[in-house]
Each structure stands twice: as structure tokens, then as C-alpha cells.
């Protein structure tokens, strides 16, 4: 009887000790469709191509919101937009990206050139640039009406498929022309 009790006790302890081999663990933050063992932020190395010759004079500033470039059509090149809630929203630029020295090259010809940089597509981004509209905490965010700036994503009932791009949701409130912390969900 004693040995059976000990065996049962061992089995009980072992099951407690080894049952929880998979996530989520107590205390871990389990966020959107990601388990704790998966990356908490995703970055992509992207190529920047300005939309107009005016843009080409200035570098793309850090924390700008960008969209996938449908002219290059390569899934690697990003550009800016003035369409609010642009469906092509790609993410937020981590650090400033320099202007291209030529606009006539393909993406493979451009590898290693200066117009490449890091784009954050998933996870917390602290200082996303806001445009002329303030946002409140816990609201959907999309592209704004000015180059590189974010804005609120309010009209989800629109029938225009070109304006359905959600960048993420705000973790705090942000003043107009200020910055806001956004949990990005572009991945």
C-alpha cells in the first residue's frame, strides 16, 4: 500500500512538473496570434523608393509610416502615401533611410546601395509619427494624409478597398503632429 502511495505521489508530482512544457507560461504576455517563444518584434530589410522627384531630395525620416510600392511590385520596396488608411500599409521605418542615387534600377541591382533600411512590421513601436489628427488610446491606426504620418483608422465601413489598411492599434493617446505608441500588426 505504501509503495503504491509513493508511486502515485511520484506520478502526480511528475505530471505537474512536466505537463506544462508548452506555452503560454504563467506571467508571459501572449499577444496577437503570437506565443511567448515566437519573436516579439518583426523587422524587414526594405528598399525605399520615393514616389515623386520632390521626395528624392530628402531622406525618409525615422518612425515614418510607409506602404508597399505597387510600382516596383517586388514585395521589398516601400514608398510613402498621402492616402489615409491606405490598404498597402507596410509598417514603420526604424531609422532614417537615405535617398536612392538612382531611380532606374531594379531591386536586385539596388542591393547594398544606400536606400535600404529597417521596417518594423510587428510588435510595439514607441514613437510612430502622427499627422494632423490626434488619436486616443486603444484605437485602430492607419496611414495619415501626409507623407510618413499615421492617423486614426475610423471608417471601417468604407466600400473603397484601397482604404482598408490597418497599421495596428494605439497603446496610448497621441496629440496632433506628435507621436504615439502603436502595436503593429502588419505581419
Amino acid at each position, binding site marked *: 500500500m505504501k509503495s503504491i502511495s509513493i508511486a502515485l505521489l511520484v506520478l502526480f508530482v511528475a505530471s505537474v512538473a512536466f505537463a506544462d512544457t508548452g506555452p503560454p507560461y504563467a506571467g508571459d504576455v501572449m499577444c496577437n496570434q503570437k506565443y511567448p*517563444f*515566437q*519573436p*516579439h518584434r518583426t*523587422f524587414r530589410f526594405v528598399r525605399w523608393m520615393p514616389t515623386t522627384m520632390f521626395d528624392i531630395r530628402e531622406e525618409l525620416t525615422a518612425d515614418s509610416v510607409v506602404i508597399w510600392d505597387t510600382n516596383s511590385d517586388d514585395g*521589398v520596396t516601400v514608398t510613402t502615401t498621402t492616402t489615409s488608411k491606405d490598404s498597402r500599409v507596410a509598417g514603420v521605418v526604424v*531609422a532614417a533611410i537615405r535617398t536612392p542615387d538612382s531611380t532606374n534600377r531594379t531591386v536586385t541591382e539596388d542591393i547594398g546601395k544606400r536606400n535600404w533600411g529597417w521596417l518594423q512590421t510587428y510588435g510595439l513601436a514607441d514613437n510612430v509619427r502622427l499627422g494632423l489628427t490626434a488619436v486616443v488610446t486603444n484605437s485602430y491606426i492607419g496611414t495619415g494624409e501626409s507623407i510618413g504620418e499615421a492617423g486614426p483608422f475610423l471608417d471601417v465601413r468604407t466600400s473603397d478597398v484601397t482604404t482598408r489598411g490597418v497599421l495596428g492599434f494605439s497603446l496610448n493617446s497621441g496629440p496632433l503632429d506628435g507621436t504615439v505608441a502603436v502595436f503593429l500588426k502588419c505581419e
Partner: protein
Amino acid sequence: MTPFAMADELIIPFPCYPLNLQKLFLEQGRKLDLSGIDRTKDSWGFIENRGGEFKLFSYYSVTKEDFKMIDNIIKEME
């Protein structure tokens, strides 16, 4: 899904030779593993070779210095 604790994922859209990349990282003082199971105390992260692109998984949050270092390494590779 990769069953390792990771902080950040960096996706680079062109191919590379993992051993070359490992060497270039080591020159910058960072130990890049060829798999998550090779992790040691001083590892920075590991590489996942996906043919036309490669992914770097860091064991810690990537800093601005890390980004700058990887930029330089990529320029050196090309």
C-alpha cells in the same frame, strides 16, 4: 513554429552563405549560431536560411547599434 525563446526576428530578402555571415558577425564581436539549439551563454542569435532570403532571430531585443552593424555586414556581403 520554432520552439526557442526569441526577442526579435529580422528578415533579409536576399540569399547568403550562413557560414560567411557567422564569420562576419564574429568579426563584430557577436556570436551567431547556425541553429537555435547551438545557443551558448555568449550567443547573440541564430540564422535561419530560407533560400532566397534569410532570417536572424536574436535572443535579446535588437538595438540601434545592432541594426547599424547588420547594415554594414550586408554592405560587405554585396
